[in-house]
C-alpha cells in the first residue's frame, strides 16, 4: 500500500472563496472517518458535542488525530470534543450553540442508544428550525438489519417530522459529498437538523478525498432557488401599502423566523419607519428590542394582556416569520377577529394558509422583503395615521402590563427575574427549561438583540436549559450565559452540571424551586379540580446545592429569604466561575395571564394582580378532553 500523505492544511477557507479554489487536500488518500473530519473543518466547525462508542470510534480517532496535528501555538485544539453525561445533552448543547450563534451545531454519537438518545434534541431542533448536523455511527453495512449489538434503525427513527433529512451512507464513495450536503441542507431554507448515519465499515474505508462535490438534490435546490428569486416587487409593495393606508390599527406579529433569517434589523427599521407596533411570539423574543418603544411584548397563551388586547383590537395583522401556532392562535377563527386584512411573510411555502387564511403573502427572504417595503414606503412618502392607535397601545401597556403579588412574604419568581434583569440589562444569554419558570422568564426578561433567548418553544422539552446554556457558552465564551431553570426541568439533564465544571465554563445556573412541576400543577388546579396527580415533589429528598457542589461548583447557594434577593443575585451573577443558585419560591405562584387551551383571547384570565378588560365568561370553561 502507498503511504498516505499526512493531512497538513489547517485553515478552513471561507465558503465563498472555496468555490473556485482547488481544495489543498484534493487527491489525498483518506479514510472515510478522516473525510468526515476534513469536511467538518472545511465547514468551519470549531466544536463537536458528542459521546463515543463502538460504531463511531474510527471518527473519534480521526478527530483526536486532527486536533493533535493542528493544535494552536498556545495548545488549543481547533475542534474540541465536548463530552456530555448523556447524548441528549450533546444534542441540546449543539442546539444551544446553533441558536446562540446562528451557525450549524455538530453532534457526533455512536450507534443504537447513542443515536436514539439524540432523537429528542433532533425533533426539538426541527420544531424550532435550528440547524444541526448529527453524525451517528452505525453497525457495519453487512450487519445492518440483523439486530446487531447497539443497532437501531436510525434512518427510520429520524424520518420526516423528526429530522429535516437523514442520510444512511451505504456507498463510501458518496460519504464526502453527503457530509457537505448535510451542512447545506441544515443551514439553507428553513433551517433544521440533518442526520448522517455512517456504518463503521464506511468510516474505515480508504479512498481519495476529492475536496469538492455535493449530492444532486435537484428538487430541493430548485425549490430554494425559486424562493430565493421570489423578491418582493413593486406591485406587491404597492398592494401592501394599499392595505396599510386603509388601516388605522396595524400590528406586526413577529416570530422565530425573523431571528433565523437574520432579519431583526430589517424588521426594526420597517417598524420604526412607519411607526407600526409589534408583538412577538415566544420564539420571536429578541426580534424587536424589548426595551424599545414599538415593542409591546409577547402574545399568546401566556403573553401580556396588553399584547393580546392589541391583537384583539388590530385591524391589519402583519405576520412575519410566525406561524399561527396553537399557543398563539388556539382558536384560529377567533384570533385577531377585527383584523380586516392579514399579511404573512415566510420562507416556507407550507406555512401560508396552513392555520389561518391570509389576504396577502410573500414567500421569500424576510430581510429583502422588509427592506424593500421600507424603501418603497419611504420613496412614496408613506405616512400612516397610527398616532391614535399608538396612544391606545400605550394605555393598554400601562393598565394591562405584567404584574404579580409584590406584597407576598414569599419570594415571587417574577422578582427574581427582575433582580437579574436590573444587572444584565437585556444583554445576557438566557436559556430555560419548560414550564412556569420559562414563561416568567419570557415575560420579565429584556432582550435587546436576537439569539440571546434560548428556549424550547415548539417541542417544549424539559431539560433543555442546562445543556443549551453550555452550548451557548461555547459559542460565546466571554458572554454572560444564565440557565434560568425549574426544579422539574433541571432534573431531566442534571448530569450536565458536571459538564459545566469539567470545561470550566463561567455559566450561571439558577433553579426556581417550587417543589414540583409548577405548570402541570397550575393546569391541575384550573382544569382538574386541584388533583395534583404525580406533579408534587415537596416530599422529595433532593438537595440541589449539594448536587451542584458534588459536581464541582464552588459557588452553590440557596436563596430563601426575600430580603436577600438583591445581594445574593448580585454575587451570583458577578461570580467569576460556574455558579449555582437555588431559589425557593412561592409554590403557589401562577403564570398569568393565561389563555386556556382551545380558548380565544377574550376568554383570557389575568389572575389577581393584572386587571382584565373583559369579564371572562364562566360558561366558556375549556373542554378538558380536547385540550393539550
Amino acid at each position: 500500500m502507498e503511504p498516505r500523505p499526512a493531512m497538513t492544511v489547517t485553515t478552513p477557507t471561507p465558503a465563498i472563496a472555496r468555490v473556485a479554489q482547488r481544495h489543498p487536500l484534493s487527491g489525498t488518500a483518506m479514510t472515510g472517518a478522516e473525510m468526515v473530519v476534513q469536511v467538518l473543518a472545511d465547514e468551519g466547525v470549531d466544536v463537536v458535542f458528542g459521546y463515543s462508542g463502538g460504531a463511531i470510534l474510527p471518527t473519534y480517532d480521526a478527530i483526536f488525530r486532527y486536533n493533535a496535528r493542528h493544535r494552536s501555538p498556545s495548545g488549543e485544539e481547533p475542534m474540541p470534543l465536548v463530552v456530555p453525561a448523556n447524548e441528549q445533552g450533546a444534542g441540546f448543547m449543539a442546539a444551544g450553540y446553533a441558536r446562540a450563534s446562528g451557525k450549524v451545531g455538530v453532534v457526533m454519537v455512536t450507534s443504537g442508544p447513542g443515536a436514539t438518545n439524540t432523537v429528542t434534541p433532533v425533533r426539538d431542533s426541527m420544531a424550532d428550525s435550528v440547524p444541526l448536523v448529527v453524525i451517528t455511527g452505525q453497525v457495519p453495512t453487512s450487519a445492518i438489519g440483523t439486530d446487531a449489538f447497539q443497532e437501531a434503525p436510525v434512518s427510520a427513527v429520524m424520518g420526516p417530522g423528526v429530522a429535516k433529512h437523514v442520510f444512511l451512507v451505504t456507498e463510501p464513495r458518496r460519504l464526502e459529498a453527503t457530509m457537505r450536503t448535510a451542512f447545506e441542507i441544515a443551514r439553507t431554507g428553513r433551517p433544521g437538523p440533518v442526520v448522517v448515519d455512517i456504518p463503521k465499515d464506511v468510516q474505515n474505508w480508504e479512498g481519495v478525498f476529492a475536496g469538492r462535490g455535493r449530492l444532486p438534490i435537484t428538487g430541493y435546490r430548485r425549490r430554494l432557488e425559486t424562493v430565493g428569486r421570489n423578491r418582493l416587487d413593486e406591485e406587491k409593495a404597492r398592494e401592501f401599502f394599499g392595505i396599510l393606508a386603509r388601516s388605522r390599527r396595524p400590528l406586526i406579529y413577529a416570530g422565530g423566523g425573523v431571528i433565523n433569517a437574520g432579519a431583526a434589523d430589517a424588521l426594526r427599521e420597517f417598524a420604526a419607519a412607519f411607526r407600526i407596533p409589534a408583538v412577538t411570539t415566544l420564539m420571536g423574543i429578541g426580534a424587536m428590542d424589548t426595551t424599545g418603544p414599538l415593542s409591546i411584548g409577547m402574545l399568546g397563551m401566556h403573553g401580556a394582556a396588553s399584547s393580546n388586547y392589541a391583537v384583539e383590537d388590530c385591524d391589519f395583522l402583519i405576520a412575519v416569520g410566525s406561524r399561527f401556532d396553537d399557543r398563539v392562535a388556539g382558536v384560529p377563527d377567533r384570533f385577531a377577529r377585527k383584523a380586516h386584512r392579514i399579511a404573512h411573510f415566510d420562507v416556507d411555502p407550507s406555512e401560508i394558509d396552513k392555520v389561518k387564511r391570509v389576504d396577502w403573502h410573500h414567500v421569500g427572504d424576510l430581510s429583502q422583503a422588509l427592506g424593500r417595503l421600507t424603501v418603497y414606503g419611504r420613496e412614496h412618502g408613506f405616512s400612516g395615521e397610527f398616532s391614535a392607535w399608538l396612544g391606545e397601545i400605550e394605555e393598554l401597556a400601562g393598565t394591562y402590563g405584567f404584574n404579580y403579588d409584590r406584597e407576598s412574604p414569599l419570594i415571587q419568581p417574577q422578582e427574581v427575574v427582575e433582580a437579574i434583569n436590573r444587572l444584565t440589562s437585556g444583554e445576557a444569554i438566557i436559556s430555560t427549561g419548560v414550564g412556569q419558570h420559562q414563561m416568567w422568564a419570557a415575560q420579565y426578561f429584556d432582550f435587546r438583540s436576537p439569539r440571546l433567548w434560548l428556549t424550547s418553544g415548539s417541542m417544549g422539552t424539559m431539560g433543555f436549559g442546562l445543556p443549551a446554556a453550555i452550548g451557548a457558552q461555547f459559542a460565546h465564551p466571554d458572554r454572560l450565559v444564565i440557565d434560568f431553570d425549574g426544579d422539574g426541568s433541571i432534573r431531566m439533564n442534571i448530569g450536565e452540571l458536571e459538564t459545566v465544571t469539567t470545561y470550566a465554563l463561567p455559566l450561571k445556573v439558577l433553579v426556581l424551586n417550587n417543589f414540583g412541576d409548577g405548570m402541570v400543577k397550575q393546569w391541575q388546579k384550573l382544569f382538574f379540580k386541584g388533583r395534583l396527580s404525580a406533579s408534587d415533589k415537596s416530599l422529595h429528598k433532593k438537595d440541589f446545592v449539594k448536587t451542584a457542589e458534588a459536581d464541582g461548583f464552588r459557588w452553590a447557594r440557596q436563596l430563601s429569604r426575600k430580603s436577600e434577593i438583591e445581594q445574593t443575585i448580585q454575587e451570583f451573577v458577578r461570580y467569576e466561575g460556574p455558579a449555582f443558585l437555588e431559589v425557593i419560591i412561592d409554590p403557589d405562584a401562577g403564570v398569568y395571564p393565561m389563555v386556556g387551551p382551545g380558548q380565544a383571547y377574550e376568554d383570557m384570565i389575568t389572575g389577581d394582580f393584572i386587571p382584565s378588560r373583559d369579564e371572562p365568561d364562566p360558561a366558556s370553561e375549556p373542554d378538558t378532553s380536547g385540550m393539550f
Partner: protein
Amino acid sequence: MRHVISILLQNESGALARVASMFATRGFNIESLNVAPTEDESVSRLTLVTEGTEAVVAQINKQLAKLIDVVAIADRTETDHIARELGIFKVAVDPAATGLFQAFMAERGAHLLDHDDEHVTVELAGSEREVDAFLVGLPPGVTLLALVRSGPLVTARGAVALT
C-alpha cells in the same frame, strides 16, 4: 375528494419510506401507490392516490414538497390528465362458460396471459373505470380468484411533463 399525485423521487435510501411516512403520521390512507424507474436512472416516478379534503391534501402536497428527495410533485387532479391502469385477473371458468368469457374478453379488450385446466389469467389495460367494470361484469360461471391492480398511472395531456 380523491387525489392522484405524481412525484419524481430521487433514488435514495429511505426516500420511499419518507413519502409513505408523510401519509402514515397524519393517519392518511394511501389508496394506491405505484413506483417505477424513469428515463433518468437516478429518479423514480411515484403515482399515488389518496383521499381527503382540499385543505388537508393541499397541506400534504406542500409538506411532500419539503422532502429533500422529492424532485418534483404535481397533483394531477387539478389538471387534464390521462390515467391508465393495468388489471391482472385470475379466474376459474366453468367449461360451459368458456365461450361467453372469451367473448367478454374480446369485447373489453382483455388479453389472455396464461391458462391451465382450472385457472385463466388475463390482463386488461384501461381506465380505472374499465378495470372496475371488467370486474363487475364477469359473466356467470366465471369466478374471480385473485385481482392484481397496478393502481392508476397518470400523465398530463399534451407536452406538459413533470421534471
